[in-house]
């Protein structure tokens, strides 16, 4: 055999190619031991030297025979080590633009990124030196990880990523090298991590368990190079505004503002919260030595339903590194938690009883009731202390608290005896400002209650006759007859199918009389009329609704609807119709969004300039079926953020409208791309036969300033990461590439391989024959057969 062949291989192993199980091998060895033992016993008459020579020869032959059965082979390999991977992560977030003071100098030095750029050329030598063991790949990271090159990173002038998510970058490295060996990571950054690790690890704290586990998953040393120092940095930043996305109207809401302050002398300054540009609250912050994080709490009560834009601002001081982080904006969606209803009743009755029961049982209604239990005409033969009566708090209700209600119900209530005339304009204004108001009939209601020619009449959807008292009342029983509008309006639609609805209205118990009204106002919609009473040739309205400025009103001229919820049961009916009628009426009166015929929807309320915003307009017919092929326009008005966050003028600009047309499902899908920051007021308008329907919404468009919210370098965070992963931590400009720690490559590559079968060679066969022959010869010679 030519021995030179072995010189081509630097590694080898012995292989056993025979397909024998462990039991077989053990069995053969046991048999071999028996053979040797028996031989030694059989040969005991011989001299020891001869005896053990023969035993050794027999054992050797047996072992060689067994070895041939196991089919040994020599596995020769020429192997070389495989390089592992080193990822170099360069932070290209916006905060890297910030200037950093050079150590020992008072002046501004290079930007944080410039320090890295100056350091990157040193990597050429490192890559060359480690080329046998490590493969270097360069990445940039900001919002996400992106492959790059040293040359490209050196040429990069202005890092501009809106975030510096180091956590996601490290996870990205792990994914990038999935199935490959990572020899190390080098992070060049100011240490600000807007990702999970940075958020979980507060300044001055150790890495938490979750962050440690996340870093350990890389199974490689992470070397960190800090670019930028906190020394000399001067800044006041609104780093976070903690707020809910929505709040409940008339319910306290808390907003917490987190400030990062560095490099400022001891002083105090105001933090201002504005709502729609108006100053809502101001808090004073007093700086303390060595403290960088301050929390400011605001508590306030949203007063209107809808979307409101809030701004938080702090003053801009001389020498601040940035002024973009001195303001913050958020949009709050204010919704109602419960419908606040004021029920005022002139005298207890079954109508009041059933209405209160309905309202009290509705978990979405917060009911305040006031019943007049006793009048000045009532006999008073007991002391006031013996009765549970309380004064009727007219001023509190109709002057101070009126605005907190969503709906006011006057149920058979006359204002006259309670010195309330002075509050009637307040109630009118409440309706015009968006409140709901319903007057329910009775001998103290409408004209009988003295409402003719009062501010209340101006918001009622019906004309009242002159006069008062019994003369403006009709006591005949009747059944309301639905008008065309009433047949499809949600208030009077007790069943979806028109025929079933008509049948239900025909079966409901009769109403026991009505207040007399002269007709509906021009802007009102009559849902049901009297079956026989007429005025000017038209049947008298019984259920009438209307919109007055921003508010909604309803006039119901009877006081017997309670019979739909009680008497109807005696005829085999259910209270469902009564409940449905009033619940629908309440929903309509308070403008329940679900009952809007035009709905403008958007998934998110806050966007960045240049990002397309999907919008949906849903249009329904009055019977709430989808309105197909309806055209409309989306009107857009832009408002400047400056006007919302300061005393500057509230600049507005009307932008081009977007026309739309609904499809078969009554939906029009639109897309709008706001180009500049601001508040955008959107109004979807649809023309219908008797006017225009609309819905409006607001979106906030702000630059992504996440990166500017926290600009203080986090050298300590980088050092913690390196310490945990056995990497090296250095700070620029004093860093050196020769100090980085890498893991040695563990994988090898087989360049050449040869398997030599030892068992089927002639040498082996001859060797066994020779040994057998020697044993036979010696045995014969030494006198054994």
């Amino acid at each position, binding site marked *: 055999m030519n021995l030179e062949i072995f010189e081509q291989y630097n590694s080898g192993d012995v292989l056993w190619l025979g397909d024998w199980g462990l039991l077989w091998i053990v069995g053969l060895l046991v048999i071999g031991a028996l053979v040797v033992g028996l031989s030694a016993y059989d040969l005991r008459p011989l001299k020891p030297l001869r005896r053990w020579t023969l035993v050794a020869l027999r054992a050797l032959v047996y072992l060689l025979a067994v070895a041939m059965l196991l089919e040994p082979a020599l596995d020769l390999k020429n192997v070389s080590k495989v390089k592992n991977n080193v990822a170099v992560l360069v932070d290209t977030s916006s905060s890297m633009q910030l200037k950093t003071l050079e150590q020992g100098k008072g002046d501004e030095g290079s930007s944080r990124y410039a320090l890295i750029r100056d350091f990157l050329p040193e990597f050429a030598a490192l890559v060359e030196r480690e080329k046998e063991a490590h493969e270097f790949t360069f990445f940039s990271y900001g919002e996400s990880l992106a492959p790059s090159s040293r040359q490209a990173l050196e040429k990069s002038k202005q890092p501009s990523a809106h975030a510096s998510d180091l956590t996601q970058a490290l996870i990205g490295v792990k994914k990038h090298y999935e199935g490959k060996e990572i020899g190390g990571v080098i992070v060049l950054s100011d240490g600000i991590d807007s990702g999970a690790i940075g958020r979980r690890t507060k300044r001055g704290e150790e890495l938490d368990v979750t962050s440690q586990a996340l870093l350990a998953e890389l199974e490689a040393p992470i070397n960190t190079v800090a670019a930028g120092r906190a020394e000399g940095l001067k800044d006041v930043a609104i780093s976070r505004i903690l707020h809910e996305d929505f709040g409940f109207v008339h319910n306290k809401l808390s907003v917490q503002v987190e400030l990062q302050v560095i490099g400022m002398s001891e002083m105090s300054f105001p933090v201002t919260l504005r709502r729609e540009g108006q100053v809502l609250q101001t808090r004073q912050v007093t700086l303390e030595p060595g403290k960088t994080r301050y929390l400011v709490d605001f508590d306030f009560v949203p007063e209107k339903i809808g979307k409101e834009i809030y701004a938080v601002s702090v003053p801009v001081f001389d020498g601040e590194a940035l002024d973009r982080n001195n303001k913050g904006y958020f949009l709050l969606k204010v919704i109602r938690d419960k419908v606040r209803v004021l029920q005022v009743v002139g*005298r207890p009755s079954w109508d009041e*009883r059933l209405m209160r029961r309905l309202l009290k049982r509705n978990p979405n209604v917060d009911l305040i009731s006031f019943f007049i239990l006793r009048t000045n005409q009532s006999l008073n033969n007991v002391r006031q202390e*013996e009765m549970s009566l309380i004064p009727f708090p007219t001023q509190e209700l109709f002057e101070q608290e009126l605005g907190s209600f969503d709906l006011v119900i006057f149920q058979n209530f006359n204002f006259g005896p309670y010195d309330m005339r002075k509050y009637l304009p307040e109630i009118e204004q409440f309706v015009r400002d968006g409140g709901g108001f319903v007057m329910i009939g009775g001998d103290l209601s409408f004209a009988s209650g003295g409402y003719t020619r009062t501010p209340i009449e101006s918001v009622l959807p019906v004309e009242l006759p002159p006069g008062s008292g019994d003369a403006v009342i009709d006591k005949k029983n009747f059944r309301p007859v639905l008008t065309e509008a009433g047949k499809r309006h949600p208030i009077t639609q007790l069943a979806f199918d028109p025929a079933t609805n008509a049948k239900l209205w025909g079966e409901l118990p009769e109403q026991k*009389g009505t207040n007399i009204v002269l007709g509906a106002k021009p802007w009102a919609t009559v849902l049901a009329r009297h079956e026989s009473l007429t005025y000017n040739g038209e049947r008298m309205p019984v259920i009438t609704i209307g919109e007055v400025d921003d508010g909604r009103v309803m006039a119901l001229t009877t006081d017997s609807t309670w019979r739909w919820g009680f008497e109807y049961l005696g005829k085999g009916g259910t209270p469902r119709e009564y409940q449905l009628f009033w619940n629908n009426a309440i929903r309509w009166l308070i403008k329940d969004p679900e009952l809007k015929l035009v709905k403008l929807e958007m998934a998110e309320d806050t966007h960045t300039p240049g990002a397309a915003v999907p919008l949906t307009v849903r249009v329904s017919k009055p019977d709430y079926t989808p309105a197909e092929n309806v055209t409309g326009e989306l009107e857009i008005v832009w408002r400047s953020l400056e006007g919302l966050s300061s005393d500057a003028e509230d600049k507005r600009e009307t932008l081009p409208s977007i026309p739309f047309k609904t499809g078969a499902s009554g939906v029009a899908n639109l897309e709008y791309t706001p180009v500049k920051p601001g508040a955008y007021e959107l109004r979807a308008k649809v023309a219908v036969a008797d006017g225009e329907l609309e819905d409006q919404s607001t979106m906030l468009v702000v630059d992504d300033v996440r990166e500017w919210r926290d600009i203080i370098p986090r050298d300590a965070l980088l050092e913690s990461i390196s310490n945990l992963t056995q990497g090296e931590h250095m700070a620029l400009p004093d860093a050196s590439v020769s100090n980085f720690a890498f893991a040695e490559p563990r994988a090898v590559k087989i360049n050449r391989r040869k398997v030599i079968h030892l068992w089927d060679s002639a040498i082996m066969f001859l060797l066994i024959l020779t040994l057998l022959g020697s044993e036979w010869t010696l045995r014969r010679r030494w006198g054994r057969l």
Partner: protein
Amino acid sequence: MHRRDFLTHSLAGALGVLGLPSSALAIGDDDRFTVSLLKYSDKGWNTRPTALRRMLQEVEKRTSVEIKPPPDGDHVTFGPDLFTRPMLFMCGESSFEPWSNERIDMMRQWMMAGGFLVVDSSEGVSDGPFLRSVRRELARIFPDEPERAIPTDHVIYKSFYLFNNDQNPYAEPHGRVEVDRKLRGHFDGDRVPVVISANDMLGAWARDGFGRWEYDVVPGGSPQRELSFRMGINLVMYALCVNYKADQVHIPFILKRRKWRVQ
């Protein structure tokens, strides 16, 4: 022309156009408050025929509630008419036959829809044959809700008149007699759809056609009769307003006044 005359003439004109009779009466005379007796059996259901009319007169005199005075012995039977009267009284002094299952179901539906039944025994004992019959039927209507004493802080004792105070811890169901110091009832949540009195309240209210009290009230005489009327008015107010006086807004006023005592 005076302003009032002008309005009257204008109204007459308007009504003329409307085609209405100028003598139209007040809205919903049928909707004025009234109570009736429940004719629960062929006999024995009308032991106090004049009481309800007298009590309702007091309600109209003392409160803002407008009443429709019932004729003496006005009643409803089991049937659709039951659902025209959300408040009923049930009086008697003798046992009666068990109701059919249909009647039990009807009474249960009536009470669950908001009906309010006041059971008042004319027997003068706390556990007479009438009350035993009533309890037998109520146990069928409320199989899972046993009869309970109505707590003294219940809204029934403050729905118009204040009834219990520091000196008089018992909110007593004053009537012609005092055989039970507690009102009892069955509950539906926090509402009491049926109230049971053993003290013959209707006996204390009953007056003959000449205005004379039909029965003496013992042992308290006139003050006891006055308290009996107050309890009747409270029951009417509870029927009409339910837990209105339990609303938070009333609590400070009521607590302040819990110091009175009838002399």
